[in-house]
């Protein structure tokens, strides 16, 4: 199939992105966490006490509360987070990282990419972030439109 110059460029960049993703994923061990579980752990590391709920996780991941609840339960079952009833709302459970959860984040596969990116200057990082964000937004819109 003939491709024009711009499409070939797009294919080249797409290959770089997928190769990068593969490098990150190849590091996974058999019993390691799935991508969504890593995202959830990162959320509970950064979220304040009142936002550390299934509802907050659902907003963060952009999925349903049922799906977020299953992700939180999988982390609870692994002992990476703990839950306690919220004082302001007895129906809510507030999650926080356990020591095992904090230790797990020390081997977050994201950290390898962070280290590789740290060779870039601040304005280069901002530009790269902006470009990648545009790609992600376009892909999300295309996939949502295709459903």
């Amino acid at each position, binding site marked *: 199939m003939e491709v024009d110059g711009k499409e070939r460029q797009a294919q080249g960049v797409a290959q770089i992105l997928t190769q990068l993703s593969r490098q990150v994923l190849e590091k996974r061990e058999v019993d390691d966490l799935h991508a969504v579980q890593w*995202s959830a752990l990162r*959320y509970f590391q*950064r*979220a*304040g*006490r*009142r*936002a550390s709920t299934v509802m*907050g996780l659902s*907003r*963060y*991941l*952009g999925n349903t509360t049922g799906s977020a609840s299953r992700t939180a339960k999988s982390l609870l079952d692994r002992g990476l987070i703990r839950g306690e009833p919220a004082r302001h709302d007895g129906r809510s459970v507030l999650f926080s990282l356990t020591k095992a959860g904090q230790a797990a984040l020390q081997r977050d596969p994201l950290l390898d990419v962070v280290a590789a990116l740290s060779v870039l200057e*601040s304005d280069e*990082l*901002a530009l*790269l*972030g*902006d470009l*990648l*964000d545009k790609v*992600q*937004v376009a892909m*999300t819109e295309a996939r949502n439109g295709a459903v």
Partner: protein
Amino acid sequence: MSAILVVDDDPAVGESVRFVLERAGYAATGASTVAAAREALMADDTALCILDVWMDGEDGLDFAAEVARSGAPFIVMSGGGPGRSLESVTAKADALGAVAVLYKPFEDEELLNAVRATLGKKSSEL
């Protein structure tokens, strides 16, 4: 004196954030639209901008990029919204150089810790 610019299209949220800041000794001003915030950013010596992401029909992250280019530090606050996940917002905010991302609902102390980490404790230092 330079002040903290609080940008949120929900007047109640903007007002309560400013109240917390002022009670802690910081000078704060507010804007409820990106246009008003842009005007304030250009007119005043903004020490720090605290902005919401989902503004009535406007993208707070686009404004965050403007704030970043102005050299003023900024904190993003968000509880999620349509179009993109909070995870995606966090990534973009981090990449733009946000000093903190606060997930709603947050406690006063979380807000003040993020502000203190950026500006120090006293408004007289602004």
